[in-house]
């Protein structure tokens, strides 16, 4: 996708998200038309702005930690000193991804209890997997001859990592982070069932109380958030040229 189109997409979704968060609280009349009998048609327990902020903070924190750990683990097991761990980590990353995120989230409760922190930890654990897997794929996919030349020219292992390996695998690693964050936005929404304050709150409250208006309001904001973040990654991806020649 061209840079201009991805800019447009990002701006479009961003504006729609902002508009939704700001305008929904004032749409009493509209929702009243749909649900004339409901006691309340706008979710007001928390403002959508604060829920959005909370949701973003949880996803961002989990994403940053998972990226650091995941890329770090991927680098570690592809170094000479860590290669013993490579088969196990690679298998773990691929088997772990078959675990449904909601099950991982649920299992974090018996282990860690209710609340925001257990949610973040569950998101980190689950979010690690696609990042590790893509980091491995990116680093291992680099043409052997390029690495041989880098060594032969006398680049130190750190120089090879920073100047050759990471730049050449950056687009694949980014794709992994994107997958991880996309899943985490969805899982964080479910996190409101284990006591994290997120955009899932209005949805869950709506389902529990049979209030369709809450459900729609939550759903719209979550969907727009996901699309907005996804197009942000699309835009970042545009800034990274891909180097097909360097990859097998």
């Amino acid at each position, binding site marked *: 996708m061209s840079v201009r189109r991805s800019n447009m997409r990002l701006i479009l979704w961003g504006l729609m998200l902002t508009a939704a968060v700001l305008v929904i609280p004032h749409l009493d009349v509209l929702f009243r038309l749909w649900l004339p009998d409901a006691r309340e048609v706008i979710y007001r327990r928390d403002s959508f702005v604060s829920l959005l902020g909370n949701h973003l903070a949880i996803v961002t924190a989990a994403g940053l930690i998972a990226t650091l750990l995941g890329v770090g683990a991927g680098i570690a097991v592809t170094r000479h000193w860590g290669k013993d761990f490579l088969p196990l980590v690679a298998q773990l990353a691929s088997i772990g991804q078959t675990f449904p995120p909601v099950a991982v989230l649920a299992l974090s409760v018996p282990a860690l209890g209710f609340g925001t922190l257990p949610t973040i930890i569950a998101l980190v654990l689950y979010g690690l997997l696609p990042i590790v897997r893509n980091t491995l794929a990116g680093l291992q996919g680099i043409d052997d001859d390029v690495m041989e030349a880098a060594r032969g020219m006398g680049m130190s292992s750190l120089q090879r990592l920073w100047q050759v390996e990471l730049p050449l695998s950056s687009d694949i690693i980014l794709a992994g982070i994107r997958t991880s964050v996309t899943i985490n936005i969805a899982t964080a929404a479910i996190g409101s069932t284990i006591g994290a304050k997120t955009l899932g709150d209005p949805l869950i409250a709506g389902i529990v109380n049979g209030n*369709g208006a809450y459900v729609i309001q939550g759903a719209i904001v979550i969907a727009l958030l996901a699309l907005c973040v996804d197009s942000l990654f699309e835009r970042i991806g545009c800034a990274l040229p891909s180097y097909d020649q360097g990859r097998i």
Partner: protein
Amino acid sequence: MIRSPSNSVLVTLMLAALLTLLAVDVATLQPNRIVAGEGYSLRAIMGLDGLLLSLLPFMFATWLAWFANARRYVVIVVILLVYWVSWPWGMSLFAQAMIEPGQQAARVGIGPGLWVLLFLLLLMVLEVQTRLGMPHLGRWLLWSAILVSVAVPFWSGVLNDLALVREYQGNADDFAAALQYHTLLVGAVVVISLTLAVAMALAMRSHDGLKRSVFAILSVIQTIPSLALFGLLLAPLAWLSSQFPLLADLGVQGIGWAPAALALIGYSLLPMTRNTYVALDSIDPNVTEAARGMGMSRWQVFFHVRLPLALPVIVEGIRITSVQAIGLAAVAALIGAGGLGTFVFQGLGQAAMDLVLLGAVPIIVMAVLVDMALSGLAAVCRRGVANAEP
């Protein structure tokens, strides 16, 4: 494929397991269903002598891993399996010792230390299996043994005092129904989306513009979080069922199976269509050209050349879709779609952790089993292709 004599991975995992067993509680005792249990360490249960005795084989395995070779790996696997097989029985002994006959509601639980140990044991088996380069059949036997050795004590009544089993017994009928429903929902979704995907892939092969817009729409759907998509389907479906009583009679409404199935199909379409399209599109034109050139009819080319070559990739699509659908169906329990997710959310609502486990663990096992089975099938298909090609 055994590289270095000392397997640092196994040694690390084993040391971690030893530390866990020494420091973290392995079992809990709960007076009733809701109250959090009291933790017991292995030492508290077995005494110092018993602790050391029970860890002795493990230390031996650690030593073997430090000087590993093919034969020692086999011994290590055997030791690991012994631990794996014996924990339910140990748990049963613990329950007999701790629960007095009158305490109807009392139950024992798996402590955090034991969870960690079980996880580490599985990792170790995985590691040894990789190092030994076990053949497919061997792996299947190994993992079947692991599964059966847990299933037997569960069903034989040995673990009747375990909280998880109590929870199961309290919900046995519901559990069977939920399992069946979950399977049915996922199965139906996979079949429907496969049919749709094949039709769309075939249509896209002849209309290039269609391809871009379909993939664009499908990837937008895939991006939207499941909970939101369920929510977004609520209003239109509710409206439909209020307008058309026939639909309402069929069970189509804002909550329940209808939005769940629709959303699941929506999510399944992207991986399924993409794989089907790629499978049909990436076949070397030289191959079909040669087939046509040798006088095969269009249908013969499709059935004897295209389909066998495409099959592994399509099966791979089914695998991705099924695993994804199993997880999403669990989320759908939130909107009243039923299935195993019901236990998870009920458990979370009642703060009954064992009910959460009763939902979450089978979901994971189901996802892993389906993943293994379908990747095995894809491998078989691929081997067929490899054999077909000279």
